[in-house]
Structures are given as structure tokens and as C-alpha cells.
């Protein structure tokens, strides 16, 4: 099969779904809450024009980025230390495995009482939930650094500092970044739920407002905006990752992947 027909096939499902959605929406065959693409785009445009969208996006981005950066930094520091030092590992391992399967959002009532309904409680819960995957991945990444590399470097008299920055971190980088990526996914999920349950700003607010006013096009516009935000941040992280890992991706399948 030629590359061209493969490329065409890849577009079939998205295009057919969009076209069917639009057509049946225009024909009035769909329930009102599903709206249809062109109306949703118009609503998105409307929200963008009166500044409501920018405000909502700013609030959400502020929360998710502050929380994610804090949680990821903590996860990287503690996780890498746990990988290096048995004492740290022994302290954190039981705690993390005890909390691993608990949805971090379950702590939301506690965070709401501690930090109030504003930005702080969302930042805290987003940071709290992105900490765990980053911790687990970094701990594992540092522990599984090839011992021969360490021995070789030590044999040549590498000082501990250089050892850490030039051997351990570069060797662990791919797995560290994989953990950061999972952390980002968790951050968005928790942000959405936290905003939906207790908040007065952010993209979720746009969704609930649209819902309450029976403006389903506005609700779906908020949903589309949130989904796009999550998708774009993931792509940004991947681009960053490709830069950081430039040398390490040579010869792997990923080098040529889009």
C-alpha cells in the first residue's frame, strides 16, 4: 500500500465523525447538549472576543503550571535522592506505595479547608498529585542507571559533583522525563476535578456557566479549550524532551517519529 493512501486512511475517522456530527446537528437529529462543531467554534470565538476565554485560560494555566512545577520539582528532588541514598528510599517507599492507589483528589476536602477556595488549594492539590508519578519514575530511573558507567567514571577519579551532573542525571534523563510526562497528565485531570468541585474561576467555570445557562455550545467550547490546553502542554513537553535528549535519541525509532 502506498504512503499516500495510508495518509488518507488516517484522516477518515476524524473527518467522518466531524462531518456526521455537523450534518446531524444541523438537521436537528442530535440532542441539544451535543450541539455541533461550527456552533461550538462560534461560541469559542465569542468567548475569545469578549475576553472571557483568555481570563479563564489564564486562571487555569496559572494553577496547573504553578502546581505542576512545584510538584515536579519536589518529585524530582526527592525521587533522585531516594535513588541515590538508601535512607531516603527507605523513608519514602512505604509512604508512596501506601498512597499510590489513592486518587489524590480524595484529599481535596482537606486542601480546600487548609487553603480556601482560591488558587492556592488548586495549586496545592495539583502539585500533590503530580509529585507521585515523578517521584516513582525518578527513583527508579536513578536506581537503574547502568552500574558500569558509574564504575568507569569512578575509576577515572570523577568527583561526586561531576559524577552526579555528568553521569547519573544524563543516564537517567529519559526515564525522568517519562515520569514528568505522566505527572503532567495527572495535573490536568486533578485540575479539572478540583475546579469543578470548588472554584469560581478557570476553564471549568466556563463549562459550568454554559451548562447553567443552557448554552451548550459554550459548555462544549470550554471542553474543547480544556482538551486543547492539555494536548498542547503535552506536545510542548515532548518538544522540550526532544531537545534535552537530543544526543540520546540517535538511532532509536523516535528520532524519525513526528
Amino acid at each position, binding site marked *: 500500500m502506498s504512503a499516500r493512501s495510508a495518509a488518507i486512511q488516517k*484522516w477518515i475517522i476524524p473527518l467522518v465523525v466531524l462531518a456526521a456530527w455537523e450534518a446531524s446537528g444541523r438537521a436537528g437529529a442530535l440532542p441539544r447538549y451535543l450541539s455541533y462543531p461550527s456552533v461550538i467554534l462560534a461560541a469559542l470565538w465569542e468567548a475569545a472576543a469578549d475576553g472571557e476565554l483568555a481570563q479563564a485560560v489564564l486562571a487555569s494555566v496559572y494553577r496547573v503550571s504553578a502546581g505542576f512545577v512545584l510538584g515536579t520539582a519536589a518529585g524530582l528532588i526527592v525521587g533522585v535522592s531516594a535513588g541515590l541514598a538508601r535512607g531516603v528510599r527507605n523513608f519514602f517507599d512505604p509512604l508512596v506505595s501506601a498512597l499510590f492507589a489513592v486518587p489524590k483528589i480524595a484529599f481535596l476536602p482537606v486542601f480546600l479547608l487548609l487553603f480556601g477556595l482560591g488558587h492556592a488549594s488548586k495549586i496545592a492539590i495539583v502539585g500533590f498529585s503530580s509529585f507521585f508519578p515523578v517521584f516513582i519514575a525518578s527513583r527508579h530511573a536513578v536506581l537503574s542507571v547502568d552500574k558500569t558507567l558509574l564504575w568507569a567514571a569512578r575509576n577515572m577519579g570523577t568527583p561526586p559533583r561531576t559524577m552526579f551532573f555528568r553521569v547519573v542525571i544524563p543516564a537517567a534523563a529519559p526515564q525522568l522525563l517519562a515520569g514528568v510526562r505522566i505527572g503532567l497528565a495527572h495535573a490536568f485531570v486533578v485540575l479539572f476535578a478540583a475546579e469543578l468541585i470548588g472554584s469560581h474561576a478557570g476553564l471549568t467555570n466556563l463549562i459550568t456557566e454554559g451548562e447553567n445557562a443552557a448554552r451548550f455550545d459554550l459548555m462544549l467550547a470550554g471542553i474543547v479549550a480544556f482538551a486543547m490546553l492539555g494536548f498542547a502542554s503535552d506536545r510542548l513537553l515532548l518538544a522540550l524532551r526532544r531537545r534535552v535528549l537530543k544526543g540520546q535519541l540517535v538511532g532509536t525509532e523516535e528520532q524519525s517519529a513526528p
Partner: protein
Amino acid sequence: MNVRLHRLVAQWYSIPLLLALWQIAVSSGLIESRLLPSVATVGGTLVAELADGALLYHTAVTLGRALAGFFLAALIGVPFAAAMARSSLFRNLFEPVFFFGYPVPKIALFPVFTYVFGFGTSSKVAFTFLECLYPIVVTSYFGFRGLDSRLIWVARNFGAGRLTVLRRVIVPAALPAIFSGLRVALPVSLIVVVLTEMIGDSIGLGYYITVWGTRFAFQNVYAAIVVIGACGFALDQALLVLRRRIVHWQKEPPR
């Protein structure tokens, strides 16, 4: 024996230590006990609520929903991944759906799910299905793709039919990847059900947490968190036992 005891203490001391610190901080009045009820209070509430049956009921609801969504996703997702890996038409059709859909925070769609499926169990199960489907399909897809083609050639050379090849070569070779996908998806199912129950429901552990949280009865919130943690742990262990039986030729990867 002494060495083993020593190691056990060294590896697990942090939980009892923190619990003890917590208890001391609360009973000495350092922390307000309304926000952080003492360990003893939480334990008492946990036992009372379990005995009462209230907590058991909500746990059963949550577990039922999580497992229903998870099993649906596994039953549909694994054959789907196999089809995507073996047929290029299938792959081209669905690859964009899974690879571009993967990083999209699907939770944003939950409001639409509540409109389509209502507020009760069906919207939660449907949403859990969607959330579990992605890790299962994507991970098992790579399992089916990463197959050594020589294995299939050898089997065919020995006269194995298509069905035999599928049953005796392809599926066993992909099983480790399938299980790692399942292991990612299983805690996701629990998390997603609790999360969506917190957003809106009148039964389930998520509802239990929100309702007692708004009444500032944090001992109940913590009791529910303990139960969720225990469920997650038990489910993961059960999956590992199953994996050890089915994929007995390969050791499980560490978490």
C-alpha cells in the same frame, strides 16, 4: 533472624513513625483535631463505619463501577489492539484516534457523559471504560507490534493454522505487554470512579468523601481514603497473582 527484623524495621519504619507523630501532635493540641483527627479517631471511625455497613456499601458501589469499566475496556481493548497491530487498514484508521487522543485530558468530556448516560452508574462505567481503554490499547498494541516475526514464520512453517498461530504464538508473546497495560489501567479505573463520584453522585466512595468533607467530619474522609488505598493495593496484588499464573515464564517488572 535479627538481620531480617532489622531490615524490616529499616524499610517500614516511616509509616508507624509518622502515624505516631500525628497522634502526638493531635493529642498534645499542636494541630487542631478538627482538621486532622487523631489516628485513634480515624481508626475508630473506620471500624464503626465498616461495622455499620455504610462504608462497605459505598465501597462495593465504587469497586463494582471501577471493575465493570475496567473489564469492558480489557475485553474490547485487547482484541482491538491486536487488530490494529495485525491489519494496516485498521491501524491507519484508528492510530490517530489513539495517539492524538492519548494526551488529551479526557476528564473534560465527563460533563457530556453525564448528559448522554445520566448521573448514575452508567456514566461512571462508560467514562471509566474510556479512560482505561487508552492505556490498555496503546500498551498492548506495542506488545503485538513488537512481536518477533520469525516466531510466526516458524510456526507457519510447521503447519500451524492462522488460529493456532494466534492462540499459541501471538497472544502469549504479547501477554507481558497486555499485563503491563492492565496494571496501568487498574488503578486508573479506581481513581476515575472516585473522581467522577466526587463531581456528582449520591452513592460511592467519592460521594462519601465529599459529603463528609463538607460536614467537616475529616475522620470519615480519612477512613474512606484508607479504604480506597486498601482496595487499590488488593486489586494490584490480585492482578500480579493472575500475571504470575498466566505469564509464568517471565518475572514481573518492578513498579
